[in-house]
């Protein structure tokens, strides 16, 4: 089954995302900031990255930039979780190499629909 790396500094969001994705049969790895996510991504094959934007230590945009420099993550889908008010973040994220975004707040159904969109 496909492995998804879920990155968010909020434990409740991580739990919700993980619970939803596992329920749909995906393997999920969690990380609470960009740096930890990057470390985990280096050590394991990940098929899709789902990351929050505003995080301490390393934010989502930096994470995307860093992931894209790794040969294994050149073409991996990376989705950002953004809020509607952060329109410029979408652009920044795209420029950094993000695949797309999911607008917060979202419900589990929307999350799965978006994941399906990239995972097929």
């Amino acid at each position, binding site marked *: 089954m496909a492995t998804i790396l879920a990155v968010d*500094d*909020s*434990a*409740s*969001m991580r*739990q*919700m995302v993980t*619970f*939803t994705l*596992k*329920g*749909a*049969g995906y393997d999920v790895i969690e990380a609470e900031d960009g740096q930890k996510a990057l470390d985990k991504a280096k050590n394991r094959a990940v098929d899709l990255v789902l990351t*929050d934007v*505003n*995080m*301490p230590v390393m934010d989502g945009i930096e994470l995307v930039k860093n992931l*894209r420099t790794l040969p294994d993550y*050149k*073409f*991996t*889908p*990376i989705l950002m*979780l953004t*809020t*509607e*008010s952060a*329109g410029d973040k979408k*652009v920044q994220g*795209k420029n950094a*190499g*993000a*695949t*797309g*975004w999911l607008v*917060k*707040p*979202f*419900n*589990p*159904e929307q999350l*799965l629909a978006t994941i399906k*969109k*990239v995972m*097929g």
Partner: protein
Amino acid sequence: MSVDLSQFHQVFFEESYEGLDVMESALLNIDISAIDDETINEIFRAAHSIKGGSGTFGFKEIAEFTHVVETLLDLIRSDQFEMKADHVDLFLKSVDCIRTMINQFEKGVSCDMEVAGELKAAFTVLLDGENETSSESNEADSKKSAQPNDSHSGAEGWQIYFKPELDILRTGNDPVRMFRELSELGELSVIAVTDDIPSISDIDPEACYMAWNLTLFGGATEEQVNEVFEWVVDDSELVITPLMLQSDTREEDLETSPNVGVVVSEHEATIIPETGENEEIAGKEVAEAKQTTTKKAVAKKEVKTESASIRVGTDKIDDLINMVGELVITQSMLSELGKEFSIENLPKLMEGLAQLSMHTRELQENVMRIRMLPISFAFSRFPRLVHDMSKNLNKKVELVLLGEQTELDKTVMERIGDPLVHLVRNSLDHGLELPEKRLALGKDEMGKITLNAFHQGGNIIIQIIDDGAGLNKEKILSKAKENGLVSASDHLSDDQINDLIFLPGFSTAEAVTDISGRGVGMDVVRRNIQELNGSVEVESKEGEGSVFTIRLPLTLAILDGQLINVGEQVYIFPLVSIVESIQTHDQMIHRVSGGCDVLRLRNEYIPIVKLWDVFNIKPKHETVEDGLLVIVEGDNIKIAVLVDDLLGQQQVVIKSIRENYRPVHGVSGATILGDGTVSLILDISGLIKLAGVGRDAYKKINDANDTEAA
């Protein structure tokens, strides 16, 4: 699939409270004259997370309110709004407001929006004053634009020309995936346009040189088609035109599409949506997931009644699991030994038992560590408290927190909060002088209160240090005489005078202020701390400040005890209360009026309490000369307790007598010893009362002997 979001609520509440604490302390640390980006970012991040979470988990009121707060923070962050001191207070009030809202949701009561409404209005004024288009209106715009501008849902299909940017693959977007998605909306025909593919020597293998002409048949709306290209539309050439006539559409539309001058080669492919097995499997999984969801939700509900949770680092849990593993190994080794035991295996048995005791001790220590939290949990409320209070009192105060990582039992932590608040309030109100007075005294205008925590022996020490006026000894003494707490002829040492402030019914506050002096005195502080098996003392120098020192046990469940025996009985003294143990000789014992024996030890007279007499049991030694005297201290009174013998020292687990039987004077609890017998743990304060050698008697003895000696 439907997921019951309420299972995540508790975590959301907890992390939101933490976020609010972060916001609060960052706000209190803000230096208005030089706002540092990281601090604002930190505050913004916390607000942002709360907004995101509350939106996701359905707490609309919180999300809406936090959104306004976040919007202003965002403007400050991007230097579009200048933050002033008033705004800090507004943000602090918002923190309180969000906290209240979360609390109301947590308790399940309806949300009181009055304060939120007022604050929101204040924010709106600020935001409107800033002639920026607030992100709220941006949001409205984006919502509008997201709506379909023409609803061509009646169209027969769509003709789509799609030429992605060269870098599309490097963003993880794959055109094939989009086509697959489109194919789920209807029948799709795909024609590749390969005009722009350069010669082989110039090809970058990671770039996408292709363009496509797509024809989608069926009743998909334009919105649905747009959604497929949502992430790439900004960087691609995308033309979507409605398909009106079923016949000839392909040719016609191809011609109307841009950039299709000469079609060098065409590859046509039709993608049919996948159905069958995969979906069935997916369906099954979803159904299963649903089941587990409901199961978990039910379990959660059962536990929910007053579930005080504790957050424990995973390293602590890992240690525990590791240790239990060791214990199991030792246990299996011992039971192996026991199967066919012969005497030559004795060394092995001894070794196994030694291991067992080591692992048990480690396990005990680690289990106790689970309940330990850094004292920063108790300290965290003080920056705000001091901030608000110093404003109220017109004093300038710097608060220094030291040793915040010192760990303390959760229960002790919860119960030390109020006494600490009382002491800090006292220091601020009575200790620190007004700025003018401080300047006049040649002190720094800014007063300083330090909270310091550290471990010492098996105790945790918390100090509240201020550099204020110190205790006024004359005032304390005259007040104490006035209240009849000491007699006019008493000669008290400085420490003894300072200690008077902990007596019941003592308050020197000239006027009852809003902040302290509300009838709850230092005696309550001392009693609360003593209930935790702790003690509190004060040291003070007039004009230089005071130091309140609180000494607390690390945990309430386990006590370091000294075992003693009287006759057949074994009792336990808390080790902390023991001053010393001595063997006496005749010259040290004095008999005073009233038939009470006292011990003269280094110019101090200490009443002797015969334990066999108090508990009415038969001892080995009835007289002081034959037995041992254990000098213990409680409530600042020393007594010498006559016992038969000292046994070992050990940690004992306290079992409450009050809860299992009823309160017993002189006994604070019981424990079960290694041999299975029950032993009582002595309560020194209670013992003093029981033996009738309270403060009055103690004073009388020392007075009488003083005059005698004089």
